[in-house]
């Protein structure tokens, strides 16, 4: 049935009337995602997308009118924390935040607030989620993926596409791919999503794509070691990055000794995870695994 995003997804697009919002809403709808409403404050009562999608002034109104259960955020960084609070307070269960550039202190407050709510946040600075052949909530290019049994969790954007492309070339399919975002403070991390894949009947194995900075991969390794029965293959970007340098992603900073590629790879290998040296090698590891072990 895939995780997070499926046929039951009823999606609100926050910021639908913007340039990006309109473009990606069309893409998502074309892919089969059920978009039920847009939210653009001050434009409530208008219609978009060939006059078929109603626009509301607030998420609460949109939820009340349409029974939406998920939302995707395309608003500017300045307004994005507000958009997350609004969606969570309106009872939206899954919020995917594409926006990048949210200050980290704002995200700390958002994150503390969400601990008191029953809302799962994916992102910010996330490319979104796709359950191939079923629905997509985000901006991941759909043409490079086919449906299959591999779950993917990734902190990166284009690196994820690279991986999806490599899988596709090898005729390997994906159950759900989740881009958790490259920022230092994000809503869902590996350990929030690994259990969902572990429980998902459609998923047989998981690919983790990580990068230097933070300790989320190390914590994931601990979780995998203790709880996961399905095989996990990983790739960690940044083996060749010098410590102390900021590599574009706010997340990709090596903090004195911790958060290095070496530390993450070590932790994952200790947990029985095969770690590839480049994206295409992930495919090799999977193919080797499925031929020798099955």
């Amino acid at each position, binding site marked *: 049935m895939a995780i997070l995003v499926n046929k039951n997804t009823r999606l609100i697009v926050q910021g639908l009337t913007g340039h990006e919002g309109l473009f990606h809403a069309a893409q998502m709808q074309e892919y089969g995602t059920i978009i039920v409403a847009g939210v653009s404050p001050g434009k409530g009562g208008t219609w978009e997308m060939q006059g078929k999608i109603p626009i509301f002034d607030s998420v609460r109104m949109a939820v009340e009118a349409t029974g939406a259960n998920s939302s995707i955020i395309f608003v500017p*960084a300045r307004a994005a924390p507000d958009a997350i609070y609004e969606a969570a307070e309106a009872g939206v269960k899954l919020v995917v935040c594409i926006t990048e*550039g*949210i*200050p*980290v*202190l704002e995200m*700390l*407050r958002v*994150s*503390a*607030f969400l601990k008191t709510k029953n809302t799962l946040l994916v992102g910010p600075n996330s*490319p979104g989620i796709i359950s191939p052949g079923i629905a997509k909530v985000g*901006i*991941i*290019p759909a043409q*490079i993926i086919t449906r299959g049994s591999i779950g993917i969790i*990734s*902190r*990166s*954007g*284009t*690196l*994820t*596409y*690279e991986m999806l*492309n*490599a899988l596709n070339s090898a005729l390997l399919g994906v159950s759900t791919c989740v881009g958790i975002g*490259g920022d*230092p*403070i994000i809503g869902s991390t590996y350990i929030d999503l690994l259990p969902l894949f572990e429980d998902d009947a459609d998923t047989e194995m998981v690919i983790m*794509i990580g*990068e*230097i900075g*933070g*300790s*989320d991969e190390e*914590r994931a390794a601990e979780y995998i070691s203790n709880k996961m029965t399905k095989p996990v293959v990983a*790739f960690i*970007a*940044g*083996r*060749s*990055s*010098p410590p102390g*340098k*900021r*590599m*574009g*992603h*706010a997340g*990709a900073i090596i903090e*004195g*000794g911790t958060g290095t590629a070496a530390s993450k790879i070590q932790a994952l290998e200790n947990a029985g995870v095969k770690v590839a*040296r*480049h*994206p*295409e090698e992930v495919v090799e590891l999977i193919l080797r695994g499925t031929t020798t072990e099955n």
Partner: protein
Amino acid sequence: MKLHEYQAKHIFSRFDIPVPKGKIANTAAEARQIASELGGNVIIKAQVLVGGRGLAGGIRLAKNPNEAGTLAATILGMEIKGLPVHRVLVDEAASIKEELYLGITIDRIEQCPIFMASSTGGVNIEEVAQTAPQKIVKVLINPLLGLRDYQARELAAGIDLPRDQWKIFTQIATSLWNIFTSNDATLVEINPLVLTKDKTLLALDGKITIDDNALPLHPDLAEMRDLDAEVPEEIEARKYGLTYIKMDGSIGCMVNGAGLAMATMDIIKLHYGEPANFLDIGGGANADRVSAAMRIILQDPSVKSILINIFGGITRCDEVARGILSAINDIKPSLPIIIRLAGTNANEGMKLLADKNLTTADTLVEAAKKAVMAAHGDQDGDPG
């Protein structure tokens, strides 16, 4: 964005954290004058945005104004880790009894600000964290409540601060917290926070790092950016919305996305090449940005070949291809360029490049191999 010591101390002072009397000097004569105003016994400190100033001779004590002038002249003539010293801070010398550490940063795992204190200040705190972690007291701060007095006292108790200093310590910690939040910092740090012989607390040195994402909200801080202290290519890159970091190798890289850029560098290294830079052109990069990126890469004389790896999502490969062609047309680079386009409009992009005598590749591995070969002198870039 990192602030200089003198900028950090200026902010400390505005938030009532006691700092030594002192002023910034651009010349030896100014330093001499300031030293004379401060009574002669001063410390001269190079203002550069790297660690290890002391070891490099960038921090010196002077006994009188003349000595201050002489030492300032020496320091103002130095380069520290490749950065020229343009300014020195001349501070009244303090009578130090104990050196402490007090700082706030972000705990990514707990998703909270974390306050840290140590009785072993004045040294590299990361080193203390690794060699003697028990010497660092940590308190997590609830971002919705902020620092509470009892937490400041826990830090004071944890570093065995004399009890008569707890009240002023709590005030300093509260000020530091206010600096952290009201400036959207990701790091604020007093190191060392000294207990002087006449029993007062004084911030002898300080670091503040501002969250780049929050700079638009703080124009006063954005103005403090010291362009002199940065690599010119990095400044140029920021102007175009690019992230460029200079490295030591010979293969110039241009990639969209930080993760993919790092993976590209990794794969170059895996094939025994050395990347000359990290360069992320970001999402939706247009022709102008691609042009700028290429110019910046070519400013580095060590570059022997260029690898362009674009995976189109929001970014359209045909647009990137047009940028590449326009840049080549402008700059007419003489070194080999290896291009790999994938994703959105990759075919259209490849078509645009096809008859231009450029080396292309289908996969990242293939592109990396070709770039390494080319850098090693195999001009057509074919893997050996």
